[in-house]
């Protein structure tokens, strides 16, 4: 039997549970051609880290990420820690030729994201994979949405809107205020814009701090985005929208049709084709995205058996580890470090526009020369 592919996880936050569950579930979903095992967990806080290691059933635990990155049982690194801890371990692992799946946002800003994308590019030629954890790309309805958009059936996308609304910053937040920003925390909506084939040209944004307690960072923003080729996108985010727990709505209006999706009803994609109106039965199709021939769903259940939020992590790891095991690049629908960088550029454009009160172009935010690695 082939030796197991060892995965080392950095970070002991709640998202670690989602990834660990996915990695453990993978063999039940699809044969990857090689066993997969989480061999080590690293986290700075010894109590919290040891507890998480016990919870996800990992024997080896360290408080030093370097030990994990260099450990011979670790073939692949999952960097799931807070964004401030993304750069150094990720660069170290890539330098050792170890593939990395790094959570979003990729870096604290576009400069760091550029440096990480360059680090990934430097080893890509030797077959080392790097993926950014935009897991919502993997929800089946959004996979299907991308295929429909790329097929051209909606025509040219001229209007994109995405909103991500939650109220955890007000209602019994289980997390202490750690300075995380709404703009980068909700980078998912920024990534969805590009995932559905749109490219930003410029941004006008406003943001607001809506919760008195906590550090002086925004809890909400709204942004208007000019699209390449003509068109307009709007992005809206709040973590202080009372009543909403996980309302992430994505909508694309094209010249031939439209589609929309809401994460609260995540198995459904609503698709409208203007051509249907000819016979009086035009309307949004309520597509239950559970068919085995829908993208990524072949190994899952018979049609009509719904999937949950956690399935996005399982799909994400399925594609990433398949690429690692088979020596292929990650698939086009998976987020690369370049995608992580592009998201960071747009996030920084939003922050800059909100701060300076002006229209900010993507071009002026682009990073041509990444800074040297800090010590």
């Amino acid at each position, binding site marked *: 039997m082939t030796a197991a592919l060892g995965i080392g996880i950095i970070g002991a936050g709640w998202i670690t549970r989602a990834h660990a569950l996915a990695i453990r579930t993978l063999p039940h979903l699809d044969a990857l051609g090689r066993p997969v095992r989480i061999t080590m967990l690293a986290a700075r806080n010894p109590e919290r880290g040891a507890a998480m290691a016990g919870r996800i059933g990992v024997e080896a635990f360290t408080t030093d990420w370097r030990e994990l990155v260099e450990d011979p049982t670790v073939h692949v690194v999952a960097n799931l820690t807070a964004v401030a801890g993304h750069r150094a371990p990720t660069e170290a692992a890539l330098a050792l030729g170890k593939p990395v799946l790094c959570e979003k946002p990729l870096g604290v800003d576009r400069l760091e994201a550029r440096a990480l994308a360059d680090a990934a590019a430097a080893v890509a030629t030797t077959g080392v994979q790097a993926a950014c954890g935009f897991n919502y790309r993997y929800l089946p309805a959004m996979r*299907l949405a991308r*295929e*429909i958009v790329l097929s051209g059936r909606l025509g040219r996308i001229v209007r994109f809107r995405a909103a991500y609304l939650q109220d955890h910053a007000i209602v019994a937040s289980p997390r202490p205020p750690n300075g995380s920003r709404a703009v980068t925390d909700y980078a998912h909506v920024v990534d969805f814009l590009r995932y559905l084939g749109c490219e930003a040209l410029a941004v006008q944004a406003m943001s607001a701090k809506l919760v008195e307690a906590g550090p002086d960072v925004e809890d909400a923003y709204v942004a208007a985005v000019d699209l390449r080729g003509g068109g307009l996108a709007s992005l809206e985010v709040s973590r202080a929208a009372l009543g909403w727990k996980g309302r992430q709505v994505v909508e694309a209006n094209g010249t031939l049709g439209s589609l929309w999706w809401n994460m609260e009803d995540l198995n459904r*994609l*609503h*698709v409208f*084709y203007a051509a*249907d109106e000819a016979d*009086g*039965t*035009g*309307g*949004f*199709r*309520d*597509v*239950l995205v559970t*068919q085995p*021939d*829908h993208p990524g769903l072949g190994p899952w259940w018979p049609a009509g058996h719904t999937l949950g939020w956690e399935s996005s992590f399982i799909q994400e790891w399925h594609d990433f580890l398949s690429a690692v095991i088979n020596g292929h690049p990650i698939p086009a629908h998976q987020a690369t470090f370049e995608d992580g960088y592009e998201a960071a550029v747009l996030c920084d454009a939003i922050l800059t526009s909100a701060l300076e009160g002006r229209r900010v172009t993507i071009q002026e935010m682009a990073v041509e020369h990444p800074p040297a690695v800090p010590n």
Partner: protein
Amino acid sequence: MAGVHSAALVNLPGLYPDLARRPRLVAVADVNLNLAKALADRFGYERVAPDAEALVGADDIDLVVACLPPALNRPVVLAAAAAGKDVVCEKPMAESAEDAAEMLRACQAAKVFHGLGAGYRWSPAVRAIGQIVRDGELGTIRSLRASFMLDYAADPDVPLLWRFQKRLAGGGIAIDTGYHLVDCARFLVGEIASVQAMSATFITERPLPGADAVGNRGAGGGLSTRGTGPVDVEDAAAALVAFEGGAYGVLETSRVAIGRRISFTIEVYGSRGSAYWDLERPDEFGVCLPGDAFTFGFRRVLVNPGHPGAAELLIGGTDGTSIGWLGQECAMWAEFMTAIAEGRSGSADFTDGVRDSAVLDALYRAAESGTRTAVVVPAGT
């Protein structure tokens, strides 16, 4: 319902400026004189008639609308027909198909117009589904599933109104809202050949109503101090019906379904596709048709001006502007006025009323006997 018909008639000229005949509201009669006066004031009737006889016999009245408890419609309709008046009768026309047939024959003999007040078949969305069915878009219809759920009777303090007495209502919730299930089932799929059914009464005694109790819940009347009386009709009923065309139907109605104020849903399944409608979203319908397997799913179609009867009611001129419940009554009255002007029978007339009642007769017999019961349409209707 008199108020609903009145509101529809008042709105008719505005919605249908080209109507050949416009209604004029002349007189209203009710055993409760206060109610009659209030209705006359609200909608501009020229007078309150002392009783139904006076109203039916008046020279300046051409058409009589009967919206009484089922057992009380017949004498009014017979008198109106005998006086040569056109007649519209709210559903259910009568306690039985035989009584309804007598009303039909009287109108036919007197050569007066007769229209059945069954509003839901006039909903543009329901009509659109009807057209899709008749166009063969759904293929051969295999089944219909319809439910009409309410909760007004879940409260045991709701008094013993006429709706809870067989003597006046002719039955319980089946003859009342189950009627709509039957009428829409016939409208969409076709005639019904036989029925299997169950019914149940959950609240068997109710307080006697106060003198002025009106509406489903007996509002305004207060409770009587005279004690309680027995409920002798059903609170809920379910039926399996066999259509003459080979399809089957599942019908369910209840007035003790807590949380359902008025939930009326219809689903139609054919060999090629499906359609559904829900009164809580009256101006849209769902349809699933063959096509691209990748985006297989029900389309949520908003009623638009191209749908049957919708153009006049979408006063915003476009889909997305709601029509609502009153709109279907207006559509019905526009059809009746047009039919009267053209000297023809209404689409939905007493023939439909007789057939609807025949299905309900079979339903009650089936619920009592526990056996599959044939629908018997009175001879000559």
